[in-house]
């Protein structure tokens, strides 16, 4: 096994393209797979030295380097202020050791249906920047995944940056994750919610779910139903049933179809009730 340690992006790109070439970022997925003898890489391109560890404000946008660690995201004032839904999700990831090593680019590229950063990035409608010797392209996160562990990255490409718009003060959000225990746990189901609120009326609703399909998915019908609706108990009861019909989860070692379906409703309901109560509290 050959390991390359490129010093810049240009050099890194020269090593890519081979069949059994893998990219090493944090290593929290790759090394485990090698140890499990799940994959046998011929070469590994270690991209740690590429200076892709940054969080920048660029006008209305936030730019996050692909090598930014989960812990850095969690501690970032910028993320906490302008992408709180992501901040909340990364706080619930793994353990301190994993958060220190794991990167946002790696979490996306690994394409787990249960990836913790992905549902919030769906809600933020993030763009993923990919580079190759052929040039650079941007792909919306909603079009990035094609199956469990599968995505649209070509062999000669890698993720360099994640870009999303700042959240604004009229935006409401929540992230919910159910695992088997509090830390070091893979989601049985996760749900990220974003939308704009004027008075008690919702608009521009976006809902993304993890671990209920072969990739993270948008719950479009559910979101559509909520658009221009006033948040009431009745609406919340109805929408928590709609989302259960919209998804097609499976049974695996972590949970069951029935439980996951039920939880999609329960998590949405809890989050929306919290929003409604806080609006009512503010108004009174």
């Amino acid at each position, binding site marked *: 096994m050959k390991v390359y340690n490129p010093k810049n992006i240009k050099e890194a790109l020269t090593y890519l393209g081979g069949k059994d070439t893998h990219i090493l970022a944090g290593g929290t997925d790759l090394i485990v797979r090698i140890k499990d003898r799940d994959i046998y890489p011929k070469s590994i391109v270690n991209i740690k030295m590429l200076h892709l560890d940054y969080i920048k404000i660029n006008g209305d946008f936030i730019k996050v380097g692909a090598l930014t660690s989960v812990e850095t995201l969690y501690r970032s004032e910028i993320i906490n202020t302008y992408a709180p839904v992501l901040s909340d999700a990364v706080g619930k990831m793994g353990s301190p050791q994993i958060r220190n090593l794991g990167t946002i680019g790696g979490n996306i590229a690994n394409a787990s249906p249960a990836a913790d950063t992905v549902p919030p990035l769906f809600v933020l409608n993030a763009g993923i920047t990919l580079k190759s010797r052929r040039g650079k392209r941007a792909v919306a996160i909603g079009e990035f995944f094609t199956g469990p562990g599968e995505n649209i990255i070509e062999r000669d490409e890698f993720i360099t940056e994640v870009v999303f718009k700042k959240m604004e003060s009229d935006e409401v959000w929540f992230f919910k994750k159910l695992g088997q*225990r509090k*830390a070091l*746990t893979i989601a049985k189901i996760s749900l990220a919610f974003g939308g704009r609120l004027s008075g008690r009326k919702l608009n521009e609703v976006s809902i993304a779910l993890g671990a209920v399909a072969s990739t993270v998915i948008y719950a479009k019908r559910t979101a559509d139903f909520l658009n221009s609706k006033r948040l009431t108990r009745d609406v919340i009861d109805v929408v928590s049933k709609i989302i259960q019909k919209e998804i097609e989860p499976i049974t695996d070692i972590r*949970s*069951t*179809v*029935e*439980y996951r379906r*039920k939880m999609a409703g329960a998590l949405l309901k*809890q989050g929306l009730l919290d929003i409604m109560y806080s609006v009512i509290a503010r108004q009174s």
Partner: protein
Amino acid sequence: MFKEVGKNIQRVDGYSLVKGNPVFTDDIDLKDMLFIKFLRSPHPHAVIKSIDTREAEKMAGVALVLTHQNTPRVPHTTAGQGYPEPSPYDSVMFPRKMRFVGDRVACVAAESPEIALDAVKKIDVEYKILSPVFNPEDALKDGAPIIHDEKDSSGILDPKHNLVGEVEVNVGNLDAGFGEADVVLENRYEAHYAQHTPIEPHIVITYLDENGRLVIRTSTQVPFHVRRICANVLGISIRKIRVIKPRIGGAFGTKQEVYLEYIAAYVTLQTERPAKFELTRSEEFTSRTRHPIITVLKVGARKDGTLTAIDMRILSNTGAYGSHATTVMYNTGSKVLPLYRCPNVRFEGKVVYTNLPVAGAYRGYGATQGYFATESMLDEIAEKIGMAPVDLRRKIHIKEGETSPIFDALGEGKKGIPQVISSSKLPLCIEEGFKLIKWKKKPKEEGKMKRGYGCAIMMQGSGIPAVDMGAATIKMNEDGSFNLLVGATDLGTGSDTILAQIAAETLKVPTERIIVYSSDTDFTPFDVGAYASSTTYISGGAVLKTARKVLEEIILIGEKMLNESKENLKVENGKVVSKKTNSSVTYREIACNALYETNQHQIIASMSHISHKSPPPFAAHFVEILINRGTGKIKVEKYVACVDCGTAINPKLAEGQVEGSIINGISYALTEEFIFNKNGKMRNASFRDYKIFTAMDIPEMKVVLIPSHEPSGPFGAKSVGEVCINGPCPAIANAIYDAVGVRIRKTPFTPERVLKAMGEIEHLKDIHKMENY
């Protein structure tokens, strides 16, 4: 008052462990060492038709391939118990018949673990597939696949029905008892599979010493049983084997098994090279497990809470081999039923083979599964008669000075021994725990979080009466220090420290003057090992006796040196002092006198200890939980454990045992679960998929040790290692009922099961199809 006992003395091995000194089995590297890996059966039930190892043997770096064709076939039990063993002789080094997914087909010894793994894949095996049986109730039926049908196995009660053993005892008149009852309830409770998950998996290193004797360095609870069982299986004399137990990274019962040692030893004997055999984590999961037990329990009670009859029937699943099969089954009765005052009791037990992973010893040893049933049932009875759960507990338990006919009727794999409870502070444990949990009347809160309280009482034993034996040797050095040599086995529990404290207290020196060396069959006297909560009580008893004998010898020499008779002498701070003149001789002077001057001899003594009783430690547990009605998730808010373990020789270590048991137990109750596929293969054999509690999950715990004095124990001590694993399952089940009004009689209480019980999910598919096993 005590000077060394009852104090939080630092562990004698604490610094070296914290510094990362090379203290564990794996911490030595021997020249020319071979590494061993298993080929395991992919089938739950099959016979090997042919096995071709030529391709593997040809590989560079492969030293030896072992199969049933080139190894001795000696039926034995892997359970490291006293001799003759109560478990059936149903195992051989490499069987021809496979009995569960993971059974041992062959092994490769090679220059590196990687080569061994690659070579394992080159072994070509042809199997004749047999139909398996997974459900223990099906296994008993006529016409079920027969798992142990080989002629040379022994000790199996009814192999044709996969029945390893059974027991029935009757005390009083059951029918009359139920007749007197105002309330009779009958329910079925099921306790599930679990693994001990020690941080250090099973590991052994074997080598030949300079004289060609076999040395087995192994992570075991039972070094002397390892020596005996290996000698038997290898067909060599005990005198040719030395077993060394270094520091251990946790055991909890799973290392009361002997099944890697003789394979590594055989490799060493064949190749004359050192060999290392370490299980991977995924192998560890199906190495040995907790017996899943189905309990059908019928209890009769009067309106005032008096229990009139208990009928307990259990079906225990021992998996593919009968390690600890009958003894665990007996224990489910013998360590549970005597807790309850009830004149009419029946206990019936059956233990069966299935084509699932092998069960074995696991902290609690059957009592854990039994208490889940009885302590859940008591709450159901309490509700029926309109009594608070804690009030019923106050009323029905055995008290100091009382006995139970069950002690006599049921032992461990045989009849028991009558005993009177000579120490119990259980009433105080209940009162103190009840106070600390602040059990509130349920407020009528409508929110999504529901609060609930639950309690459970429990006991265990201290060693196996008239079976377990420990011995100690103490010799005095010329600086007034002492070598304490014990066969007892410190598993990380701190027993080396506790035994040193017992010696120090008796010899009236600080603990640091005691140099402990333990668990080496060449250099330490015999001890059955660390199991059945025996070390403090049994091995501690041996240390106490030995230290007393050495003290007598010291005083004898002091008499001569001070020219004073014994009655006028006292011993304090490492000196023999004349009460009359206050003149004194130090231990140093006494030891030097004995070694170099007068009547020259080594001051040394060895004593052995057994006990004809097994005084139970008692505990009362209280738990407060919050259930999220939407998700079914249970959050343990607070856990209170009040424990009577007699005198705590080292309170901090005793509290550690209690806290460890509670976390172990809550994790078993809430998250740990074996998930099998249709083939009986465990699907979640990794820490990624089998969730034990992390530091983040641990609730607020309040542990209170309530001292009693056990007259038969060293300085009044009883055991503490196991008792508290029995509480969490029933206490949490009772709290769930208190919170949301549903009774869950099958562990673990996952959110899926909680919601199902609440009627929120209709049924659970696939994943829990195997749950009846």
